[in-house]
């Protein structure tokens, strides 16, 4: 019995605890991301934002969650029941799943796998299914149009993101698909400096990939009401909402890991470079990129659909392809 406990139950419990250590802060971060968005946009528009529930409105996410929990679940007539309920769960689960490989310190990630970067890319490329499934299963015009737009947009921008990932992997060299190795290779010089154009392109692609402003055409209020999750209510809607913000945090964390040195300290002096400081740096950098997401939403007007597609296929794709060739040329040519 004790043997069974030691070989099966205890390792399983340990894995569960490690997962909780990462997932609980992520979910809390997602909850406060919704508050941060309202506060940042309010600040950009000279308003106060939510300030009634708790001091500075810090309890607002909890109030919102309670409200959504007690709302009625509505199933539209003619909707495909199973797919309709599956879609929000898929969106949220995928947004959480990807955190498994994120290196938080130099010796901690839930799963430190060889092909972590590919895993991350694979999981984020699955995110499009939640959108398509919800749009189709709602059996309604606006969600369907929103889902079509969103799917086309996500597939288009994934291509240039893939090429940027290849650039980073080439720069790291052997073992370049492991996220820990990528961060360690940035000791001394963050990739955002030599690969600055790609850093910008990656960030813009991340905006498009998460359907955020200025690329939020899938939910463009003026023409599509709310896009693919129009027919959802209650917790299903909450799951979509949380999934979207979790994806923003994930993309921010991915940008940080690939270009801004992940958990590494910006200046390695005194105690700042210690291992226990690394999660703090990681969170600070991720928060900064997430803030830029909100900042962009508050300042930039929405793109037109054809402009969006043109930018993805005719500007970003050739640029990132050129950068892959240039990087491999420089690395082979100078024998780096």
């Amino acid at each position: 019995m004790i043997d069974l406990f030691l070989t099966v139950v205890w390792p399983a419990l340990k894995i569960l605890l490690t997962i909780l250590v990462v997932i609980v802060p992520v979910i809390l971060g997602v909850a406060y991301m919704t508050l941060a968005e309202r506060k940042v946009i309010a600040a950009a528009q000279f308003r106060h934002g939510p300030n009634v529930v708790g001091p500075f409105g810090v309890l607002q996410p909890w109030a919102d969650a309670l409200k959504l929990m007690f709302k009625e679940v509505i199933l539209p007539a003619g909707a495909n029941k199973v797919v309709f309920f599956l879609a929000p769960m898929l969106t949220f689960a995928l947004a959480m799943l990807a955190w498994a490989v994120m290196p938080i310190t130099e010796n901690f990630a839930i799963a430190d796998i060889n092909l972590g970067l590919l895993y991350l890319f694979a999981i984020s490329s699955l995110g499009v299914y939640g959108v398509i499934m919800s749009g189709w299963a709602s059996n309604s015009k606006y969600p369907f149009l929103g889902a079509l737009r969103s799917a086309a947009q996500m597939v288009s921008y994934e291509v240039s993101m893939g090429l940027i990932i290849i650039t980073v992997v080439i720069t790291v060299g052997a073992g370049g698909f492991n996220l820990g190795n990528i961060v360690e290779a940035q000791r001394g010089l963050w990739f955002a400096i030599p690969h600055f154009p790609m850093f910008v392109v990656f960030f813009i692609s991340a905006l498009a990939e998460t359907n955020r402003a200025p690329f939020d055409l899938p939910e463009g209020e003026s023409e599509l009401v709310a896009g693919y999750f129009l027919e959802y209510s209650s917790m299903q809607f909450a799951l979509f909402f949380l999934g979207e913000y979790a994806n923003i945090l994930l993309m921010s964390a991915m940008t940080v890991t690939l270009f801004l040195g992940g958990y590494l300290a910006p200046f390695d002096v005194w105690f700042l470079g210690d291992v226990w400081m690394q999660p703090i740096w990681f969170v600070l950098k991720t928060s900064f990129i997430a803030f830029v997401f909100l900042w962009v939403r508050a300042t930039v007007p929405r793109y037109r659909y054809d402009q969006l597609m043109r930018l993805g296929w005719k500007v970003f794709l050739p640029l990132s392809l050129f950068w892959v060739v240039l990087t491999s040329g420089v690395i082979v040519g100078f024998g780096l």
Partner: protein
Amino acid sequence: MAEIITGLTFYLFAAVTIASAVMVVGSRNAVHSVLFLILAFFTCSALFVLRGAEFVAMILVIVYVGAVAVLFLFVVMMLHVGENRLFQGVKRFGVVGVLVGVAVAVELIIVITTRAFRQDTPAVAANPATADLNVTEALGRILYTDYFLLFQMCGLVLLVAMIGAITLTLRQRDGVKKQSIPQQIERKRDEAIALRKVESGKGIG
């Protein structure tokens, strides 16, 4: 203990793969069929991971599930294939379908009975990874040395397919106004705006 768990996961994923593959054919709703196909792809990649072929697994998810199946789903969703239309051509194309099925079955049997699948074949044949090379590197070595020509030929076939698809869908229509972005950017203030002093009661004329 670990082997038992790995075995159980294998059987779980294998069962899901087979069940969803059956559902791809058996499902009456075309969109459900595609969704089951996606599930089959995904569980296949899980099986690859269990076998130690992580690279192939990830590429399967990225390429097939993340891109190809999305387009599949797109097309099937747009077509609105009803149940009656689904079984329309069964009589006409049934024979061809059965023939293709038999051909694939024969090919599979031939492949499975070859040396590579026998019990006494060393594991190297299935898993190219060695102590100092991980799967990705080993795969790259084999692909770019031993099978270089075949690999390049696959690329050429894909290129031809791509050009064919583009020429099939490319069409120039007359009388359609097209936006020329360089032309729009080239426009100067002088060409676009004219300031006139309009006398009251006369108009520009």
